[in-house]
């Protein structure tokens, strides 16, 4: 992407401000409220659990051991791989990935539509997209539960109109969680993609058409590569919070749609919690996210270098 901005470095730096001063507040916030808690979390993941929640300051690898290995009920069986948590992680990644793809499939045309309206209508459409998000996420998720449950208006309407004769039974399934995730994070896809499409120079499409490219080819070879930064930003903004989401799986999902977010949440909630295990799960989740992001960054730098 770096190659796209021409001539940014020319001219004087007088009006660009002092980098240190500009970043100081951000560094303070990140340092105090992000780095310190994350480091604390990393330390906690190596401590011993206290039965009523909290930790005992005794270093151990028990939490990670518990995550990956199964040693039987009393801990004295030969170790085998524990699939429960890996399964939950796998389902979370799968659900978050699917939500990202759904958000992209629906968000891209939406963003395209908004970006191609005239300036006044764009503001109106953006407002319409964002207005539901002024309502608290919990309330929205509960409303969705109400809407799709077996006794809810969706099933009632479908049964009344004769399309189905028994409730669909969406609630407490992976599908319900998927709907919740997709709905929760759609604007995080629409907004960055909109920003990219809005800057898109439509004479590029004309140039491609002039050079014998059909509509589909123009989308594939010109539009998508040019707006790719917006798409990537949208995908990250949808994927990462979906991966750690706990409201949608808690409220809409059943026992078989448990996700990482809920797993971690439970470890810190109430007396049954296991802080070191929750911390270890969070560390593993963070490691996965970091690996994905770093792999992407690597592929990008290689692309611009060639």
């Amino acid at each position, binding site marked *: 992407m770096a*190659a*796209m*901005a*021409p001539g940014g470095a020319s001219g004087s730096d007088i009006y660009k401000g002092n980098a240190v001063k500009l970043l100081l507040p951000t560094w303070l916030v990140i340092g105090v409220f992000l780095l310190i808690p994350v480091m604390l979390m990393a330390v906690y993941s190596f401590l011993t659990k206290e039965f009523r929640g909290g930790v005992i300051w005794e270093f151990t690898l028990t939490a990670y051991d518990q995550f990956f290995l199964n040693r039987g009920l009393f801990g004295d069986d030969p170790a085998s791989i524990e699939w429960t948590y890996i399964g939950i992680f796998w389902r979370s990644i799968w659900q978050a990935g699917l939500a990202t793809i759904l958000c992209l499939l629906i968000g891209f045309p939406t963003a395209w539509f908004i970006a191609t309206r005239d300036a006044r209508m764009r503001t109106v459409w953006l407002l319409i997209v964002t207005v539901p998000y002024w309502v608290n996420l919990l309330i929205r998720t509960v409303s969705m539960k109400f809407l799709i449950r077996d006794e809810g208006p969706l099933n009632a309407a479908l049964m009344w109109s004769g399309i189905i004769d028994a409730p669909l039974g969406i609630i407490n399934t992976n599908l319900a969680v998927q709907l919740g995730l997709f709905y929760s994070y759609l604007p995080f896809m629409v907004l960055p993609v909109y920003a990219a499409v809005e800057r898109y*120079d439509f*004479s*590029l499409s*004309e*140039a*491609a*058409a*002039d*050079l*014998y*490219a*059909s509509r589909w*080819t123009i989308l594939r*070879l*010109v539009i998508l*590569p*040019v707006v*790719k930064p917006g798409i990537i930003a949208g995908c990250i903004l949808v994927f990462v919070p979906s991966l750690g989401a706990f409201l949608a799986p808690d409220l809409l999902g059943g026992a078989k749609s448990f996700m990482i977010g809920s797993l971690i949440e439970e470890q810190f909630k109430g007396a049954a919690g296991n802080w070191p295990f929750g911390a270890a799960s969070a560390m593993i989740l963070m490691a996965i996210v970091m690996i994905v992001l770093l792999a992407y960054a690597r592929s990008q730098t290689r692309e611009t270098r060639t």
Partner: protein
Amino acid sequence: MIGTVISIDRVEKRFGTFTALHGVSVDIADNEFFTLLGPSGCGKTTLLRCIAGFEPVSGGQIRLNGEDIAPLPPYRRPVNTVFQHYALFPHMTVLENAMFGLQRLGWGVVDAEGRARQALELVHLSAFLKRRPGQLSGGQQQRVALARALAPEPRVLLLDEPLSALDLKLRQAVRMELKQIQRETGIAFVFVTHDQEEALTMSDRIAVMSDGRVQQVGTPREIYESPANRFVADFIGETNLIEVPVLNISNGLAEVSLPGGRAIQCPTRLVDATQGVLSVRPERIDLCAPSEADLIATAGAQVYLGTDIQLKAHLAGGEQMTVRLQNAAATVLPQSGARLGLRLEAGAARLLAA
């Protein structure tokens, strides 16, 4: 016309209630540098976009070698465009940009790369194949746009004010180069510009447009020296327009009465008129003694233009004339307010419809 490559036949273009093109008809010959010249809003760019296929026509035909291409989408027309702001693909290298059209036409990578390299060599960009457009100067980007459009060897190359984003010096250099490339490739160029100097120096023929109509088609010389009407005379170069009564017209020669009473003969396309407008270029008027003058005037302000000096002269009836004098050692400039004799050079005046 023999060797016509593109025949624009009564093309209409309406945007809602606004009519951008009123039945425009122009024939463009093979191997011709053809310019659409006019002020902004005259329809020249709309016509170009109709030929390229970006705008569907509201009526009429655009025939390419006899075949009507007006119903075809842009990607089915063997016509390429150089865009005003180049519209280079920012995520592709210079070479990839130049290969784009060839690959869409089904060329293999090796062949396409070979041809693209040739096209880039033609515009002297062989050293920049791996750069991206954002790393090039405006002039270099303009060359990439040209190479990209030339690589598929279109029957006609459309250029939409391609020089307007360049600075003056570069613009003058590129003009000559464009003309040379047109000669070398033998492709018909349709060049849109509002810059008359550009049009006069580069074109084989010019179509002067205004208000969605073609006012005149001709060689630069014809357009400049025998303008068809008042608009063309006024738009191309500078001219003095003097309202005169017509005494007599026969065989393309009119006899008119100049302000002050003197009668002169001048060429015209009019067949019959009692009133007309005389167009006289400022450089075709000389100063002389009042006794032998065609017009008597009072000297006004002078503007120093380097090679020339522009002199305003006021006629007794209040009309203002502009005279251009060469900045030669022998030129004697009249004092402001002095009585001047003006003589129109032989054939300098032309009678147009009022």
